[in-house]
Structure formats: C-alpha cells, structure tokens
C-alpha cells in the first residue's frame, strides 16, 4: 500500500527544475514517504507554497497544490484546513518566504494553531533569486547583497515557535531523509500547527553550509540520552545552547487546535454544508435586525 502510494505521488508530480543535489529533493521524497506511510492518498492532501525554489515543493510532491505568492503559504493553508477539515494540509517554503516576507503569518499561525504542518526548507540563502542574504543567514555571511558580510543577526525560528506556544517543533536535515520522514509522519499526525525546519542545503549559492558541514555540526536528538521533548523550557534551553544546531523532534505537546475552540464549528467539513439553510431561517435571521 505505502509503496504504491509513493508511486502514485510520483505519477502526479511535475518534473523538477531544482539543481542536482539540492536539499529540497530529499524533503519532497521524505514527505511522499511519510504521507504514504500514513496511508494518505494524494487527492486527500493539499500542499500550499509561496515563492522560492522551495516553493516548488508542491509541484514535485504530486498531491493537490496551491502555489500562492511570496510569503503567503500559511494564510492560504490555514483557510483550506478551516474550509475542509478532512484534507491534510501542508504548507511549505523557504527561509526567505517563511521567516522574511512571511514572518508575520508564521508567528500568527503558531499561535492560531490550525491543524496544518509547515515545512521550511532552510538553506540560509535566497536560492531562486540567485544568492542574496536571508533572515537565517549567519552574521557576517557574504552574499551578493551583503558583500561585506551580513550585518544582522539571524532569526531563530525554533525559539520563536517555542516562545509562540507551538505544539510541535522539529528540525530535520536533508542529509538524513529517513529521520526527516519519521518527523514528518509525527508532524502530520499532530493535531494543531506543527513546524519542521529543515536544513536543506543550497548547493549552488551556499558554499559554506554544505551537507558535510551540517553533518559535522548537527546534534541528533534521537541519540541524545534523556532529552525530554515534552518540556518546553528545557527544549528552549537546549536549542539556545546548541545554537539551533539540532535535528529531531524538539518539542511536542497536545493542545486543542483552532477549530476545536470555535463555538458552533461544524463536525462536518464546511465545504459540505447545506448552503440553502439560511433561506429557510429567514424569520430568525431577520429578527437580529429589528
């Protein structure tokens, strides 16, 4: 079943335009595997992206896809889930898309806690626009727009998500697609907003943070004895002390998702509601305006 489903995803996928070796390939493959393992066929999944190399995620995933504007994957994704709670909704994009132009939506999506999974392919650079600095570029990073080195300090997405109250925060690495697929499985199953920041190397424009560099510098939480992913303060401290250089599930907590908090929100997907009902309720509706 699972194997067939991966094939099904691949059949729907468009052909790729990513540079050979781009980290994003592994992200798509891991997601196909995770969704297949969860027995979710492509038609029940919608992947929403913004703009960027990583914004092509949904073209290559092979599920339903909505490719919005730069930075705008999250509002669209949340609304799709609200409109049809039976769909599995994944938002995806780059670090510029999510933590630059889209940072406002990111923080609010964290606190709104709509049941979607957000995958950020974090390569510390703007890929599609051919190599400018990104909000996650380290201080001093030399790019086309920062020839003297980036002056700003990088955004710290994991801490932001933790501080914002996220119920599921994880980080993956394109160099370990197996772990990534496992994280994705858990994230998709998590009820509420889940963030997976994926270190996904840009082999073309980031020659510092290479697969090799990440491999040497990332601490794998799966191998950390005694790490407790249910303790938010400890998670925060761990991320801070490791300068974010971790991979694995960093924090998880069961929380009621947005839709569970809405009075009157229907158990049946909104998209299947009978739209003619209000016409029958005329007297009652008009009573509100007398």
């Amino acid at each position, binding site marked *: 079943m699972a194997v067939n489903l991966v094939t099904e995803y691949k059949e*729907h996928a*468009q052909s790729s335009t990513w540079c050979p070796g781009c980290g994003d390939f592994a992200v798509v493959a891991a997601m196909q595997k995770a969704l297949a393992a969860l027995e979710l*066929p*492509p*038609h*029940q999944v*919608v992947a*929403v992206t913004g*703009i960027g190399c990583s914004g092509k995620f*949904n*073209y290559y995933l*092979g*599920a*339903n*896809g*909505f*490719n*919005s*504007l730069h930075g*705008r994957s*999250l*509002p*669209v*994704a*949340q*609304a*799709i889930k*609200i*409109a*049809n709670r*039976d*769909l599995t909704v994944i938002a995806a994009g780059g670090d510029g898309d999510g933590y630059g132009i889209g940072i*406002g*939506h990111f*923080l*609010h999506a964290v606190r709104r806690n709509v049941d979607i999974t957000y995958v950020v392919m974090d390569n510390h650079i703007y890929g599609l626009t051919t190599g400018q600095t990104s909000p996650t570029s380290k201080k001093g990073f030399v790019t086309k727009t920062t020839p003297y080195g980036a002056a700003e300090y990088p955004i710290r997405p994991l801490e932001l998500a933790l501080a914002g109250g996220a119920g599921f925060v994880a980080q993956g690495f394109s160099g370990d697609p197996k772990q990534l697929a496992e994280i994705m499985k858990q994230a998709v199953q998590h009820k509420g907003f889940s963030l997976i920041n994926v270190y996904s190397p840009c082999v073309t424009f980031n020659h510092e943070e290479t697969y090799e560099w990440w491999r040497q510098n990332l601490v794998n939480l799966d191998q950390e004895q005694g790490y407790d992913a249910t303790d938010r303060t400890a998670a925060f401290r761990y991320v801070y002390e490791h300068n974010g250089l971790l991979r694995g599930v960093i924090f998880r907590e069961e929380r009621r998702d947005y839709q569970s908090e*809405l*009075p*009157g*929100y*229907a158990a*049946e997907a*909104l*998209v299947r*509601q009978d*739209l*003619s*009902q*209000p*016409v029958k*309720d*005329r007297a009652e*509706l*008009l009573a*509100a*305006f*007398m």
Partner: protein
Amino acid sequence: MTNADFNWKVGGAQGEGIDSTGEIFALTLHRMGYYVYTYRHFMSLIKGGHTNYKVRISPVQRRHRGDGLDLLVAFDQGSIDFSLPEMSPGSAIIYDSTSFEGRIPEGRNITLIPIPLTQMARDLGMVIMKNMVAIGASAALVGLPQDAFEGYLEERFGKKGDAVVETNRKVLAAGYNYALEHTDWRKPLPGLPEASKGKKRLFMHGNDAVALGAVVAGCRVVAAYPITPATEILYSVLKLLPKYGGVVLQAEDEIAACQMAIGANYAGVRAMTSTSGPGLSLMSESLGLSGASETPLVIVDVMRAGPSTGMPTKTEQADAFHAIYSAHGEIQRIVLAPSTVEDAFYDMQRAFNLADKYQVPVIVLVDLVLGLSKQTVDLEDIDFERIAIDRGKLLTTKDEVDAVVARLGHYKRYELTEDGISARALPGLEDAVHMVLSYEHDEEGNEMEERGMRVKQTRKRFNKMRSLNMDEWALRRTGPQNPDLLLVGWGSTEGQLEEAREQLTAGGLKVAHLQVGALYPLPAAAIRKEIEAAGKVLVFENNYEGQLLELIKQKVGHYDKVQASLKFDGDPFYVSEVVAMVKEVA
C-alpha cells in the same frame, strides 16, 4: 414631502453615550412605524471630540439624513455651533443648562430651551442618565406619549432588575414633564398612516446588509482585520455565522485576511474579506493571485475618506480606481457598487455568484454613509426568495470528475474552453489531483513561459468575462425619457439625487436620475443610451477626480455635455447642495 419629515439630533463629546442615545430614539420611532434614517458624525478617537447622531423621521422611506434640523439636543456649545447651519427656521435646541449657557447668533429663528439635564439626572439617578432626561424632553416636545420608550427600557434594562428600569423611567418622565412646563415650543412628528403603526420592519445599515447578504448567499468563512468603517460587518456576521458552522476570523493583517478568503474559496467554501481603503491597498497582490489562479474571491471595501489614513470616520467614493486598477499585470475583475441597504443585501449574492461563475475577484464598494447609517427597511424588500446560489462550473463529486476524465483523459484545471471558463474541482476528489498557481501555466497547471500558451491563457482569462452583461441590471432610472438634465450617481448618493430630482421637477425642470450599480465592467451601452438621450448630464460623486465620470469617458465616450459635480469634504451631499450645483449649470 420633505417638510413633513422631522429631523432630530443629539450632539456632545465622544464618550458621553451620544450614539446610544441616538439609537434609542431612532429604534423606538422605527418600532412605532416610522421610517427612520440615521447619520452618525464621529471621529477616530474614543474620548473627547464632537460627535452627533441625527435621526430623520418620516412616514415614508428616506435614503439620506435630510437637509434641515428641527430639534437638537446639545450637551455642549460645540454641538450647537456644529449643527447651526442645519437648523431649520422655527427649530429648537434643548441644551444642558447645568453645564453651559447656550448661545446662537442674533437673528436666527431658533428657540433655545435650557434644561438642567445633568442636574436632574444626578438628583434622580446618575449623571449618565442625562441622556434619558433629554429623550424624555424630546418626546414631550414632539408629541410622543410619555410611555413611548417603555418597551425599550424593559428590553435594555430589564436584565439589570426592576429598580434600574424604574429609575430610568423616572428620569425620562422628569425630562418629559420639565419640558412641557418650561417651554411652549412644540413641533409634532408627522402623522403615521394607520397601516404603518407598529409595523414590523428592519432597522439595519449597509454593513448589516452585507453580512446578512453574504450568509444567505452561502458565505461560510469571513476573514478580516478590524478597520473603520468596515468592522460592523464582522460584528453582524458573528451574530449569524456560527449557527451554520461558519467561521469569522480576525486575521493578523489584510494580506492574510485576503489570502485566507482565497484559500477557503479554493477549498470550495464561499469566503470573503471586508475592509476599507487601507486594507484594500494591502490586498492588491491578492487580487492578482485571485485573477491569475482563477480562484473566486469576494472583497467588500467600505470606503472612507483617503488618501492614506485619511479621515477614517468620513465618507468618500474615491476607491473606484483603486478597486478597478490595483494589482500589477492584467487581470479581470468585477466591481459592484450598491446604492441602498437592499442593494447591499442582493449584491452579496451577486458577488458570490459572479465570483464562482467567472472565477475572478469581485469587489463590492460600499461608501461609509451606506455602510454605517442604520435605517428602516421594509421586510418584503429583503426577499430571500430572490436568493439563488449558483456555484458555476464547480466539480463537487467523483461522478462529475469522471465525466471530465472521460472527455479529456484527465482533469485539467485550466482547460482552454469555448467560454474561457474551466471547471474547478474541489481539492479532495479522486482523479482530480491538480495544481492551482500564481505563475503563468498550461492547461494542466504546470508553470510555463511558452509564448503560445501564455497568449492562450491570457485570452482565456479575459474572454471568460465576455458573457457578462451589466447593462441589463446595473442601472436604476427614474424620471422622464429624453430629459433636459440627467443626474448620475453611484453609491449612497441615490437618496439625495432622487429628492433633488423631485424638487427640480416640481420647479419645472425635466430631470431624470440614473444610479449606477456596477463600475466594472461598466454598463457602458446602457449609460451611452441615457447620455445620448439627455440634454445635459451631471455626475455626482464624493471624490475629487470624478472617478465615475472618468470611467464613462473611457468606456462610454467623451461628451461635452457630461460634467462632474463633486464633494470631497468627508460629508455626504445635502439635497440643497445638489440643487445648487444643478442651478449653476442648468
């Protein structure tokens, strides 16, 4: 006729309960069977600053606040000064003599009625009840029975216990009796036809109608960011939507709100966002997305005076160009402009149906006066029987998808069709897995830049609107054929233009009135016919540029006989201004 109406107003400092006082008065008279039309003057601050609430009371339906003022309740001298220009000969001013000595210029035929409103309220209850004293006094002088407000008191204060109701009743009675004893000034309200007495009608503003219209039209998601003067739409929709499982969501900004409306529409749920000019500015990119991806979208822009932050609480009709042209590149869209509360109600179903049918953004332009002026509307004029939901080419079942697959081999979201409209499949249907995208694309939804397909897809997006004919429904016309003068307006000006037409007609002019209900596409052929048949044409607008006139020049043609009559000070037209503008040229 106009002079049969009674215009009442209460004015004071913001934060003094002026709005609720006005609403008590208006609602009570409305329930008695009068047609009321209210107009709020207020500012974008919470305390201090002048505010007033005007109520026009008439035995017949009125569409604007009226020119004159018969009775003013003033809690400060500023309120008198502000409203003096409106005061009719023989009118009166009740002022709060506890706090100031009311003054009017020499020679004005206005009766000053000092009543210690604050003192009386303090003695009998609490200072804030000074509004009740004023209502009592007003009631006495316009010939209402003392118990006219009884029902309202029960409804409003009943929950707080009998004592509270009783105190309010006492305070109101004190004002009533004091007024009768201390002044001879009287001006009775117009008589009510027997059939109108106690007749059940609606008391709502355009924003209420937008909300109601949306819900009845099947809207189930409203995402918006608070902004004057559109926030009331959220309040109204919050009263209506939860019953249907719908969601009202306050987004983090208008960009998100609009993107959410697009997302929900993509998923198959009718969704909208409501905003004002500053928010619409933030939605430009989303207009483009809706247009390029062919995803339905409904935006309601309750227009306030711009530019930029402008005058948030003042009215204007200056977002026509914004609505029609904003977003880069070329997309198709539809811009509707309701003139009345009833229009606003029906235009919402029209907006959703058009958005679904043509898979384009639809913007509904409501001006502030229409959005915020609560008024009496006849029940039969909000006719749910006229609501017909048409989702256009929307595939909602596997069978429908199968039929497409049988025809095409597989589902194509952007199929090049005869009418330019390609079927939208709900995400979630088997065998209809597809991409929707902001990039240029081929029929399957692959991003591409191939020249031939680019041209085809662009033509398709524009061609799909060819079947849309606004000429048939988007104009409302009154008056004789081949008039010497044609008054043209859009939005809330209809009431004033219509009354001006009546006055001018009575004065011997052959005048007709044309109200335009859609700005894009403009019902150009129908407008051309009207212009060509008229002697002179005046286009009345609350903006500086004469935006409708410019659109007419663009789409209908250049005519020397067509001129603009413009007012852009944030205040709606008075009938007298319209008449004066006509006399300048006619």
